[in-house]
């Protein structure tokens, strides 16, 4: 049955490819039939597992659907993306895809805006350290014996829940508006003559960092708080008995114990940060002069303005490779740091 449905899928796909090449007409409007055939094949594959392997197949059935889903939605587009990455393909032009070899690579190499966006990502990622410090401080404060803890927790959590686009309007467009926005007003009251938050490159970059931090500090805070609450109270008491003051107890007991959690939180935060785009697209669209561009927002504009799919895909692929290398290195490093010293 698996083979049968697989054969059907291959037959349909072959028929479709033939039509795409133009040698035969079957009257398909799009590639939908291939999709249906694929879905049928996937279902038959799952079912066939149970029929063929019995008990063992039933176990496979737990993982197989998710695996098929992920494979069909990531591996296939990635392979497909590799093909279009090396082609000149403007979706709005009628000639369709044209293989152009390494042209895109040379273009990328000479594209100052792309490398600028890459550099920006480094700055954005470095800002995580500051976010981490703030988040740790807040988590410590929340972990102390305080009243109204629930209120504070909810209040702190809210920024994370809001959609980045709405946030970028609420803060980026209205509160930071140079004439009427409350923060601009505050800045003027504090003696800043001309509070424009997106005028000069560095201030704009800083503003984007702050807005992103506002959204994601709660995330790190919650992870760190969970870590803090898992530390047994006795340890801190023992440190106190041994005569450590609060500061030393923190550095010598709490902080080392929190190291694994901290590293997890920072790594996850970096992963999220590398996807940063919504705020930039909605508030500055990369300006002034690309100072706030992230790689994602740059590629987004590359597509929207020039609808150049091939070049955009190549940029994204290069970005992916860099991310994978960087994350692997970071994880190795993190592993070395968090392993207890013996």
């Amino acid at each position: 049955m698996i083979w049968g449905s697989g054969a059907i899928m291959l037959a349909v796909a072959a028929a479709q490819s033939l039509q795409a090449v133009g040698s035969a007409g079957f009257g398909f409007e799009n590639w939908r039939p291939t999709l249906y055939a694929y879905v049928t094949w996937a279902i038959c594959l799952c079912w066939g597992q149970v029929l063929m392997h019995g008990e063992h197949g039933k176990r496979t059935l737990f993982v197989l659907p998710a695996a098929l889903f992920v494979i069909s939605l990531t591996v296939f587009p990635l392979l497909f993306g590799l093909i279009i990455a090396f082609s000149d393909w403007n979706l709005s032009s009628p000639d369709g895809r044209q293989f152009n070899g390494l042209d895109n690579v040379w273009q990328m190499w000479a594209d100052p805006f792309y490398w600028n966006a890459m550099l920006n990502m480094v700055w954005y990622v470095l800002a995580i350290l500051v976010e981490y410090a703030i988040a740790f401080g807040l988590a410590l404060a929340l972990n102390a014996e305080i009243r109204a803890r629930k209120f504070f927790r909810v209040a702190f959590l809210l920024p994370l829940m809001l959609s980045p686009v709405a946030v970028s309007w609420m803060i980026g467009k209205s509160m930071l508006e140079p004439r009427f926005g409350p923060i601009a007003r505050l800045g003027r009251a504090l003696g800043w003559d001309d509070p424009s938050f997106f005028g000069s490159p560095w201030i704009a970059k800083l503003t984007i960092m702050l807005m992103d931090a506002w959204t994601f500090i709660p995330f790190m805070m919650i992870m760190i708080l969970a870590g803090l609450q898992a530390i047994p109270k006795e340890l801190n008491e023992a440190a106190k008995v041994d005569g450590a003051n609060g500061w030393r107890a923190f550095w010598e007991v709490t902080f080392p114990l929190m190291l694994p959690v901290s590293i997890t939180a920072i790594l996850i935060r970096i992963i999220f940060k590398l996807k940063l785009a919504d705020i930039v697209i909605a508030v500055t669209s990369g300006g002034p002069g690309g100072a706030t561009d992230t790689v994602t927002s740059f590629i987004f504009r590359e597509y929207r303005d020039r609808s150049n799919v091939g070049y955009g895909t190549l940029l994204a692929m290069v970005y992916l490779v860099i991310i994978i290398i960087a994350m692997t290195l970071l994880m190795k490093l993190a592993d070395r740091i968090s392993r207890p010293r013996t």
Partner: protein
Amino acid sequence: MTDTQIFHDSPVDRAFRAKRFSGRLAIYALLILWALICLFPIYWTLTTSFKMAPDVMKGHMVPWVDFTPKWLGWKSLGLSPDTLGDESTVRAEFLKRFSNSAIVSVVSSVLAVVLGSLAAYGLSRFSYKFAWMRNSDISFFFLSQLILPPVVLALPMLVLYKELALLDTRIGLILLYTLSVLPIVIWIMRDQFSSIPTELEEAALVDGLSIWGAFLTIILPIALPGMVAAFILSLVLTWNEYFFAALLTSTHSNTLPVMVASQTGSQGISWWSMAALAWAAILPLIVIGVVLERYIIKGMAAGAVK
């Protein structure tokens, strides 16, 4: 009982108490400051949606003291009390986007939770061998999807969807959203399942249930809190998603964030209606956040402490 106190606080203790008090004060000051930072933009948006042009320009903050609230912003959305009965194209548009967002995020979250918990359960209980991949490899394969930035998938997906006629459909968005939250769900659920003792299912298997029967009747009810946490978290993430929605949809299946973003570009739109729109877009999230805060924190903390 004598008047004189026998046990006095020594000066050292009193100094300690003063220090403790000031420390307490500092903690509260910090917390309240940060709570203000968190809540003020939300408050500002809500009040702005009731303001009129002069109120905005003069920077009035407190309703009824500085300015009288007007329904102006909500009227332009067709959601104020006096326009609620009338026909309104803006409201129809808003409701369409809202329902798109709701359908897409709910369906994809359900799908992700179902697929994710099955996979997580399988990975936490049985040992697999697909070709060269063992359990840890499979787990890593799923979790590594987290690193994949959406932009890498975006353009190939755009082309594929165009060929498959899935562009600007809800199904297309649902598939991608499910994919993007699946690793998070698997992460949370794997944690959840591995905290349930295996003896439970062994007992069930001895009693004659099949593997799936044991999973559905015994394990699922126990793991329900974790599933709710995963569901809420993916609901929030998918509701807020903007990047894919902006690329892959145009008129039929636009979600709410796209609508909000498309308004921010134009200068003509007035602050109060924008504020009303933004507030309406975040309102469901605020409700979820306040009511289900426990689950969200649980879900996010799941991976932190091993």
